């Protein structure tokens, strides 16, 4: 037994969860798939008096596609991977999930858990930012909606307060004539990305960019939206060379860490290359219509 002792709670409704969180405040932590939290507990990097297990709250799991795609926080990543609704309506999400960990991790890991964990190198926060998804958050006082741009406030920190719970995430459905890609570099399949880029874009009738969303993985202390790249692309009909320039500008504006996995300079170069590649793939897909 490696984690420190804790009191285990097994609520069955969201109302019970928020009541427990209101009672125990920051001494309590919600336990979703446990694929990041349990290692942190085992290594004693984190310690909580109370763990509130969400795995027995059926209302938190499920995928609903009507107008937009709503994914319950406790939906397993493996369920997203298998979902025809996700593949059809939000291709960027469908393509990103297989890059998370390994299939054994995705069998337990959840969409909400990965987003709430807010690791700057992980895939789903980048997908949320690129798509400008919205999170529904529940507290004992009621529910509120948090837009993507306000969700990620620091490393492993979101706008979800200690007495609140991420309930679901609403992803906009892909438009016609759109394309999307997430490309990352990892030392081995399933490792955290050294750097990566997610993008989605749609074209108008003249093959000009009507709308673009770009986010970067592993390029700073928080999951990053690359607004400059979005602005560069808006209304443009860029060549492949233009895309490289857009990507280089976006990467140059970041301040990634220097660590054993790569220097900041290396990460910027890799990121620029990956973003250009992702944008190129998205364009090609959008032009095919």
């Amino acid at each position, binding site marked *: 037994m490696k984690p420190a002792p804790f009191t285990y709670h097994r609520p069955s409704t969201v109302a019970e969860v928020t009541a427990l969180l209101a009672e125990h405040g920051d001494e309590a932590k919600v336990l979703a798939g446990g694929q990041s939290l349990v290692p942190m507990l085992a290594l004693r990097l984190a310690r909580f008096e109370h763990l509130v297990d969400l795995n027995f709250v059926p209302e938190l799991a499920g995928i609903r596609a009507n107008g937009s795609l709503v994914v319950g926080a406790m939906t397993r990543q493996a369920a997203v991977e298998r979902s025809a609704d996700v593949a059809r309506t939000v291709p960027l999400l469908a393509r990103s999930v297989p890059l998370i960990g390994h299939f*054994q991790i995705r069998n337990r890991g959840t969409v909400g858990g990965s987003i709430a964990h807010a690791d700057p190198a992980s895939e789903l926060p980048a997908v949320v930012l690129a798509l400008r998804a919205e999170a529904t958050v529940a507290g004992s006082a009621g529910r509120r909606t948090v837009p993507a741009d306000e969700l990620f406030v620091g490393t492993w920190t979101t706008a979800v307060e200690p007495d609140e719970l991420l309930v679901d995430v609403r992803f906009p459905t892909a438009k016609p004539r759109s394309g999307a890609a997430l490309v990352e570099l990892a030392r081995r399949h399933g490792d955290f990305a050294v750097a990566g880029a997610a993008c989605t874009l749609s074209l108008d009738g003249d093959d000009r960019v009507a709308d673009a969303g770009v986010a970067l993985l592993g390029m700073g202390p928080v999951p990053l939206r690359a607004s400059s790249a979005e602005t560069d692309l808006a209304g443009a009909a860029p060549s492949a060379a233009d895309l490289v320039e857009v990507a280089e500008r976006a990467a140059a504006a970041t301040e990634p860490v220097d660590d054993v996995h790569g220097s900041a300079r290396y990460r910027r170069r890799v990121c620029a290359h990956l973003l250009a590649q992702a944008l190129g793939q998205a364009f090609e897909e959008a032009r095919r219509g």
Partner: protein
Amino acid sequence: MDEMTVEVSVNGETHKGSVEARKTLADFLREDCALTGTHLACEHGVCGACTVLVDGQAVRSCLMFAVQAEGSEVVTVEGLSPNDGSLNPLQEAFREHHGLQCGFCTPGFIVSVTAFLRDHPHPSDDEIREGLSGNLCRCTGYQGIVRAVRAAAGAGA
């Protein structure tokens, strides 16, 4: 210390116990169920040695607490071979193709590959390697493992 009761089906047999909430499913299987085929190495979700099937899905048993398996059906490596003690076709393929050296990681590989081949009965080599990527072999005997999985897939294991 607060203990909780837990009731889990393991390899078709009901196991009831009283455990601390912080006891992992892996420790419960090894200590309370006396099923030591499930191995523990890293104990933080990296190596895959502790992989078991929970309700049919391969998961890291070091990243689940035993109390979370309440009401679930767990299958460990012990539950994968025939009752007469012989090897199943996948295990035979590992032996035939030298898919193990020291053998410590092997239970995790066997359980993972069992689920992988069920879901991907005709995998390409790339799919096999990606499917194996969640299990580490510190003897680095991966070539033999890939050959064993390829052979087992070809034989319809």
